[in-house]
């Protein structure tokens, strides 16, 4: 019962926000165009948040995702530029995209290995790589962005009336949800997050699964990075600055606990959309991007506080002795 209520809360808040904004700006907010735009804008951070869900359920955290977004994008764009921007073929773009995705996965693998073989706490390890990856992204092209003017499909393309980025987001969501619920990696993620020692004693290969989880978020960040590059037709070394905050907030608002063992893909989607609609609403209401920080901050604190309250109440009423 408690679990159901806990998922209802973020969903309820999402519905509430949509209703309030619809009432305040019916002409600009409540349009198909606007909704599609919000979905499209949610795709990049949303895809990373899907990966972050696994990480947080495993009682870990990845602060380097913003930097990975930048680095993967820069490398992907660099490959495309090296292969001949002047006369771009489809092959160039495909290769560049794959390169970006692989770099993301490799960065994630690096995080995973640091955490498992050196036994570094995820917070510390990814705090370090956050700086490292960002540094490489900046140094690569002396702080300058890399332009890829024809690379528009992922960011702006439409397939069957739906933006390609949204299709990719949906596909990633479906696959991730399947893995989390129906496959061992998902199940072991919950077990490791709930009680790492117990999982180990039950034969779970904790280190291997953790490496998989961090590589997974890296891979997804690589995909998100290439969509981002496509959207702005350039790779920015400053991309994703501060992204980790929105992404982690989305997962926590969606019901995941930072102490591990809890969380769902559905919850993360709701959390992602909540933040997206909030930002969208702020823009339509004329609230500056700076002030948006205040709004988002308040929402995050409220969401976590309410969740803690609900959790505490559930604990005292459910217990049987």
């Amino acid at each position, binding site marked *: 019962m408690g679990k159901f209520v806990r998922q209802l809360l973020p969903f309820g808040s999402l519905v509430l926000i949509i209703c309030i904004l619809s009432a305040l700006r019916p002409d600009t907010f409540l349009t198909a165009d606007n909704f599609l735009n919000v979905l499209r804008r949610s795709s990049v951070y949303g895809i990373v948040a899907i990966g972050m869900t696994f990480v947080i359920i495993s009682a870990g955290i990845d602060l380097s995702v913003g930097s990975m977004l930048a680095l993967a994008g820069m490398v992907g764009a660099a490959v495309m530029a090296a292969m001949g921007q002047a006369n771009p073929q489809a092959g160039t773009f495909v290769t560049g995209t794959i390169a970006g995705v692989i770099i993301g996965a490799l960065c994630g693998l690096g995080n995973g290995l640091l955490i498992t073989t050196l036994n570094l706490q995820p917070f510390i390890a990814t705090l370090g790589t956050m700086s490292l990856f960002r540094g490489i992204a900046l140094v690569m092209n002396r702080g300058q962005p890399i332009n890829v003017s024809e690379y528009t499909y992922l960011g702006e393309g439409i397939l069957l009336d739906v933006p390609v980025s949204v299709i990719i987001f949906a596909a990633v969501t479906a696959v991730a949800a399947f893995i989390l619920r*129906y496959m061992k990696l998902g199940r072991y993620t*919950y077990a490791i997050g*709930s009680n790492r020692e*117990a*999982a*180990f004693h*039950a034969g779970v290969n904790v280190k291997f699964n953790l490496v998989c989880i961090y590589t997974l978020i890296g891979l997804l960040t690589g995909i998100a990075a290439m969509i981002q590059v496509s959207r702005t037709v350039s790779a920015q070394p400053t991309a994703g600055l501060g992204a980790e905050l929105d992404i982690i907030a989305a997962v926590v608002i969606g019901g995941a606990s930072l102490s591990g063992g809890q969380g769902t893909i559905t919850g993360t989607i709701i959390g992602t959309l909540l933040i997206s609609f909030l930002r969208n609403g702020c823009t339509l209401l004329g609230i500056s991007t700076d002030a948006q920080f205040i709004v988002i901050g308040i929402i995050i604190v409220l969401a976590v506080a309410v969740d803690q309250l609900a959790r505490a109440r559930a604990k005292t009423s*459910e217990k049987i002795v």
Partner: protein
Amino acid sequence: MTESGTQTDEQTVSALVMKGISKRFGPVQALSDVSLTVRRGTVHALVGENGAGKSTLMKILAGVYRPDAGTIEIEGLRRSFERPEQALEAGVSMIYQDLDLAQHLTVAENVFLGNEPKGKLPFTVDSRAMAENTARIAASFGFDIDPMAVVGELATGDCQVAEILKALARKASIIVMDEPTSSLSEKEVERLFTIVRQLRDKGLCVIYISHRLEEIIGLADEVTVLRDGRVVHSGGIGQLNIPAIVRYMVGRELTDFFPARDVKAGDAAVKVSNLSSGKRIRDIGFEIRRGEIVGMAGLVGAGRTEVARAIFGIDKKTSGVISLDGREVSIESPADAIANGIAFLTEDRRRTGLCIGLACSWNITLAGLDRIGMRRIISPARENKVAEEIGTQLLIKWVGPEAPVDSLSGGNQQKLLIARWLLCQSRFMIFDEPTRGIDVGAKKEVYTLLNKLAEQGKAILFISSELPELLGVTDRILVMRRGRMVGNLKTSETTQEEVMHLAAVEN
């Protein structure tokens, strides 16, 4: 009647009177009209099977839960606790089974946690006063403990002394101890008894919850027995003996406490030779045949759990060969061990056994997803069915297989873990203190289960600190002392004294 008993006859006001307490959690009526009277200067035992309501009653006393009905009177004054702090102020101190101390702080800091004497400057704490006061209280009761020792480095027995000092520092008049001896060595148990008697002689009341009925007989002045949330007996310990208490607890005779077994042991299923793991255990060797239950006795710290951990691949072996059914096996991790058909039910189910926030069914299948045909894809529907079946088989009391694990009582949680290993269909099963912290009825179920497993041809290693159960259940007993194996006895030809002697006495 004890001396303190005659003293308290003069007083008309009891230290504690709980009357008509009822409490319901959802569909479960945990307590119905329970009354408890504890007089000053007595040790009052509270017994009952798991789920009988002992913990709930004490948590109501400690202000953790609010009762649906009933009253609490302390020293004649009606009290109603909204928060645990209020109970503490009223003089009620709880010492839980898993002690509640801050591992990185010293004894003195723990004793005065939340209650620190103020220093000269504002917002400071007078550390010297803390240490001195701790030493003073300890001395007045004759406890020997270093106030400056860091709790994380203390033995369990000393940690308990720290908890008791904490209660005394708060001027507790009622101290509740929940299963205090479950992790103590024999020597530490003796020491605890002395402490409890001292507390009683100084006029405090000690409410003592324990499954160890021999202890109750030796220590308590009065006893209250709960069954299914009701009081079935309350009064002086006087004429009561263990069978009588058990009868009240379970409502029926428990004859043949240790179920009979008639199993012909087969070939050697497990052969361990020359097993060593660093300095912890050295040169351990033994054999277990199919259908045999071999016990492992020894004092706390003798290395019994370390043997299990080395076999199961948790600790690194520095030497040793393990053979199963005649073939040597290489085990570097628990996953290897499980794949080779070894199971290990650990002694600390909260820390190394259960994933508390997850569902019961998930906990049951965790080690055996491959075995139930879920190597690639997990089917939640079938998983629940499997869990339901094995839950019924083991008589697990739960709301359903999807319920979270923390809604189960200790005994049922233990059964859950047994279910996990049954699912793996292991051929060699290691049980480390499987009956710790579970009630009499559930214990017998565990013994019956062990017999059944032996009948199925499994080899069982049964590690335990309770000599009676080792003598009642096993075919042979291995004795560990200081990391070495010092005895390999045939159960039918040995005695508690002989086992204890081997375990404790250096020669």
